[in-house]
């Protein structure tokens, strides 16, 4: 990446492939000619234009590290949203949208990082964190990762098969808030300080912490990390709030 880049342009992205991630989320692979590359944790803005010229745009996290002109997003349907239902239900391979990016540079993990990494996701907040796990693998990094993913039910896990396979140096833990798998030792309930303590890193290791999810979830987890003794400067957060996807 050069020191000074040109200002952002809208580019045409063409859908290449789409697969269902859960009942309400879909992973979309776009081809974006001359895509400049990105870091794990960055987003793109997606813009749709209606026949009458009305435009709506939303920001989505990139789900995988840079791979040429291929850009991967996972989009959660927001039932009365203006953009997400089109992306989860309607768009077909060959259809275009406009994208600009990558944007953001604070909530990112760089493959040359050496500190252990703790990732804590609420629901679809796992998307940029999965991009970090994938970037680690793509770069051959040996940095130890721990991912804690809070979901309502087992059917709400994203990338379940990929994250279930033994990953060298990546521990994955789930917190279920509504319904657990059979025989699961922990009753369903919101993430608590014990979950973060059990599945996270001790503060002594000075891990880099990334927390992404709905605003209330992020506030709660960031407060737990601080209470456990983590340095607030090592806690990076991204709240996607109740925005109208």
């Amino acid at each position, binding site marked *: *990446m*050069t*020191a*000074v*880049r*040109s*200002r*952002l342009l809208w580019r045409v992205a063409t859908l290449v492939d789409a697969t269902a991630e859960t009942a309400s989320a879909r992973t979309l692979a776009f081809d974006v000619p001359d895509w400049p590359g990105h870091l794990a944790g960055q*987003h793109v*803005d997606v813009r749709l234009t209606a026949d009458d010229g009305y435009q709506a*745009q939303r*920001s989505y996290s990139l789900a995988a590290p840079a791979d040429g002109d291929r850009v991967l997003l996972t989009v959660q349907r927001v039932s009365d949203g203006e953009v997400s239902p089109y992306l989860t239900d309607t768009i077909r391979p060959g259809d275009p949208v406009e994208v*600009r*990016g990558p*944007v*953001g*540079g*604070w*909530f990112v993990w760089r493959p040359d990082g050496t500190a252990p990494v703790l990732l804590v996701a609420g629901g679809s907040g796992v998307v940029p964190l999965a991009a970090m796990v994938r970037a680690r693998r793509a770069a051959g990094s040996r940095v130890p990762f721990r991912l804690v993913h809070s979901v309502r039910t087992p059917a709400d896990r994203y990338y379940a098969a990929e994250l279930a396979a033994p990953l060298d140096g990546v521990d994955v833990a789930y917190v279920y808030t509504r319904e657990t798998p059979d025989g699961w030792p922990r009753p369903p309930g919101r993430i608590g300080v014990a979950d973060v303590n059990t599945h996270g890193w001790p503060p002594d290791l000075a891990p880099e912490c990334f927390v992404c999810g*709905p*605003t*209330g979830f*992020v*506030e709660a987890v960031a407060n737990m990390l601080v209470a456990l003794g983590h340095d607030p400067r090592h806690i*990076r*957060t*991204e*709240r*996607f*709030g*109740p*925005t109208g996807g």
Partner: protein
Amino acid sequence: MTHSYVDGNALAGPLRELFAVEVTGAVLRCAGCHRTGPLAGLHVYARAPGLVARCPGCQAVMLRLVRTPTRVHLDLSGTLGFAVPLPA
């Protein structure tokens, strides 16, 4: 309403229309309480005619960004400093 905000990461796209560099990692000082922190940590209220970013410490308005069809208005009167890290 509590939790009706997102954070400064949401300003990444709109501010990249104006600035030649990525600014969510920029460190801002609040004119209200003099707290410093990254732009990404501000509380951003997007349900308004523009984007309003408040200090996470004292809730004072630090930045307002309004886009019309012909111009962009950026109000930084609640921000005392704006330090931008340059890429290595």
